[in-house]
């Protein structure tokens, strides 16, 4: 299975860096999925959740509060102001769920976008 490199970077450090089979990004104009070999694109990201699937079908969920994504054929780099990993390869990180919700609520996006993202996070548990 081909993979694509995903990097999620904040000013505080790297939140996630690894190879995944598929990424779903929360773009300003709606969610979009990225598979390996995607055409190059730069997009604004809204506050929301970035989800990714690894090669062995594990799900990764990271809450972000807006930023940028640069997609190229072999790499997705996202630059965000803040990010909290809600779920990684090992499973849900319950301690981070509250933090993720706080992060989303502090961002300056529309309430509906936040509400959608929060409910997504809650459904993970």
């Amino acid at each position: 299975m081909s993979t694509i490199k995903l990097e999620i970077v904040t000013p505080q450090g790297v939140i996630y860096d690894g190879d995944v089979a598929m990424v779903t990004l929360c773009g300003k104009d709606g969610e979009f999925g990225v598979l390996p070999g995607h055409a190059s694109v730069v997009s604004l990201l809204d506050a929301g959740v970035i989800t990714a699937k690894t090669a062995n079908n594990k799900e990764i969920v990271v809450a972000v509060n807006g930023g940028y994504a640069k997609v190229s054929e072999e790499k997705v780099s996202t630059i965000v102001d803040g990010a909290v990993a809600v779920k990684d390869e090992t499973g849900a990180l319950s301690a981070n769920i509250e933090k993720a919700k706080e992060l989303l609520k502090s961002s300056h996006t529309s309430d509906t976008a936040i509400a959608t993202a929060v409910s997504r996070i809650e459904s993970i548990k």
Partner: protein
Amino acid sequence: MASLKDIKRKIKSVKGTQKTTRAMKLVSSAKLRRAEQVVKASKAYALKITDMIEEIAANIAKSQEELDHPYFKSVANPKVVDIVVVTSDKGLCGGFNSQTIKFVNAQIAKFESQGASVRLRAIGKKAISYFKFQNREMLDQIDGLSSSPDYQKAAEFIKKVVESYLNGETDKVVVVHNGYVNMITQEIRVDNLLPLDPNEFTPKAVSTSELEIEPDDDSVLEALLNRYFEYIMYYALIDSLAAEHSARMQAMDAATNNAKEMVKNLTVQYNKARQEAITTELIEIISGVESMK
């Protein structure tokens, strides 16, 4: 000649100081390690963001002749220069803050000799109190930020600076802070924040694939650049904090050693004084005995 009691008291007090300075050194070295990690972690972000700006700038350059953005318009003779100076909130760190202030003073003199007026924006208690004492007007001042850097607050601060640049109130913005090199060295770092030098953003490797940018080039570039400014400000803060801790560590180490030296000297003095006292006492006894004969 100080009395025995006086010397004893002095030794005790110096020993007390030594304990404090040693503790401060340990605290600083622990904090330094943390600050160092923060700096290291944020480096990844810096690389990414400059990469992205470079690529978008290159993309725009493909369609347009040159970058036509107020951020990139350089002025040959700036009339108004804003200097953002970052110092620590706390003292007891050797020449750390005075170095920065000295440098800023030299910069002010330089710009003023070129006929520009300088406006100061100070971060950190030490810079604020210094310039207040000098009766220099400060456009903006924040304390409490340099001892606990916060991205959000740094962003708010720099936003005001960028806005005043866009309004044409200033032609040039410089950020000065004392940066961290390693455990024993700090160096003054100067960032020419605005206007940006387009040459700084020429990509090393031009990608051949067509880059699609949503919603459009200019708004993405502008927002990215704003983020870049925020980051530069934030980086100045965390770098300065790391440098502050390393400077304090050094200063406290020197202070501990000096205290040790002082205790040694005082002990010698104390022993001499004690010896003298014993000798005088002996002479007194002997001469007393002699006179009784």
